[in-house]
């Protein structure tokens, strides 16, 4: 309920424009991966998904950030059903991948930001390898590149008051990990897929 309300207000506030250039807006199981410049990124991407898809798509977020403070914790857990993963001290027992694969096996979708954190540069940071292992573990799930434009101007990292600009979200053509593809080659291909959306 709160989530729907937030999605509505963010659409009104920033007039999010969605452009689906590589696939159709439906509730097929997918892993959406996007560039990350603002705390609003997830909300922007989430708000353009069809209502059906919003029910089954879960954001992957850093537990060190989202477990700080009550509001963050409440938003991440109760409102958006976020999957909080450890990004600092990853061990065999808390390997975030296990949780993510379990969610995909249960038929739900994911939103992940493979840069591993928000960037303030115009260029994306190099991708973390999680996306690759996810694609290896679930080879039949589409990995969908998404470029989110202007979110960093609406709410830059370190600011808490948003300004109302028009944001566009561009959804590209799904990719999958090829059988013989190396980790580095795939991660570069995935990054390029987002860059291509930004130019489209």
């Amino acid at each position, binding site marked *: 309920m709160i989530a729907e309300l937030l999605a509505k207000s963010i659409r009104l506030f920033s*007039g999010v*424009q969605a452009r689906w250039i590589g696939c159709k807006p439906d509730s097929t199981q997918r892993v959406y991966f996007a560039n990350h410049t603002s705390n609003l990124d997830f909300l922007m991407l989430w708000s353009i998904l069809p209502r059906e898809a919003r029910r089954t798509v879960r954001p992957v977020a850093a537990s060190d950030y989202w477990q700080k403070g009550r509001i963050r914790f409440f938003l991440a857990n109760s409102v958006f059903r976020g999957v909080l993963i450890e990004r600092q001290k990853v061990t065999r027992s808390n390997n975030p991948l296990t949780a993510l694969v379990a969610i995909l096996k249960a038929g739900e979708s994911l939103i992940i930001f493979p840069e591993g954190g928000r960037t*303030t540069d115009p260029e994306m940071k190099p991708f973390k390898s999680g996306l690759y292992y996810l694609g290896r573990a679930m080879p039949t799930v589409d990995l969908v590149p998404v470029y989110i434009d*202007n979110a960093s*101007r609406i709410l*830059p990292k370190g*600011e808490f*008051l948003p*300004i*109302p*600009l*028009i944001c566009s979200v561009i959804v590209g053509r799904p990719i999958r990990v090829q059988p013989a593809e190396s980790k580095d080659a795939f991660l570069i291909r995935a990054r390029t897929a987002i860059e291509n959306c930004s130019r489209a």
Partner: protein
Amino acid sequence: MHGLDFRLRAMVGGVFALLIVASIIGHILKLRTKSDNGREVVQNLNARIRAWWVMAIIFFVAIAIGRIASLLLFAAVSFLALREYITLTPTQRGDHRALFWAFFVITPLQYLLIGIRWYGLFSIFIPVYAYLLVPIRNVIAGDCREFLARTSKIQWGLMVCVYFVSYAPALLSLKIHGYQGESGELLFFLVAVVQFSDVLQYVFGKCFGRHPIAPEVSPNKTVEGFVGGLSSAVLVGTLLWWITPFTPWQAAIMSLIIALMGFWGGLVMSAIKRDRGVKDYGTSIPGHGGIMDRIDSLCFAAPIFFHLTRYYFT
């Protein structure tokens, strides 16, 4: 009161009659046009006409409710126009707080000042106070890169999207000798002349346009469109003299000034679009582009019309 009601009804009736005629012509053209190129133009024309219906209804509802409703409508228009303008303007991280002030403090305050009829302050609030606040807030943010360019972009946005636009509903606060101007006739006069001029420049340009008037800036604007559009706008404005405090001659001169300022406004705002490499400011009005594409001429015409009227008629 009866006289005012009659004028309002006449304005609504006149505009809707024109829109009905336009819709019928649009429909006939749709049936008749066969070529792909022509189809696209007609489709865009029909989208424009449909959007005109919506805009006219919103405008008349606001005018009919009264001064406060009209102020709120134009405040919303300013807010959305500023949003389009800033989206298109490459602002930097260091501008964030100044922009927050622009959207959420300066814009509402400007309309509040008009709402309480504080002419002395609303007429200088943005050119003096906001103009100074923007560089101060930016200098506190500490980023010096392209300081002048960044600051001026925000100042321009506030002047064009907020300050100039706000002069349109400010007309409702003018006290004119022997004329009851609360029900929006002057505002209607301004908006009608500006928009007629725009529409007829488009129509004359499409039908007879041969010689581009400013090929570097706006390839669609032609000498034929300019002459045809402006003279019809003056004709329409003159015929509307009876809803204004003007004599027919005065109405004609006012219309000419409004249409000329509107033409230049459209041209200036086009230059900004051209520089940014886009065709429209947005996509919020089907067929027209963004809000800013629709009100660019109004921005330039409103303050001049307001001050001329205030100087000579109050």
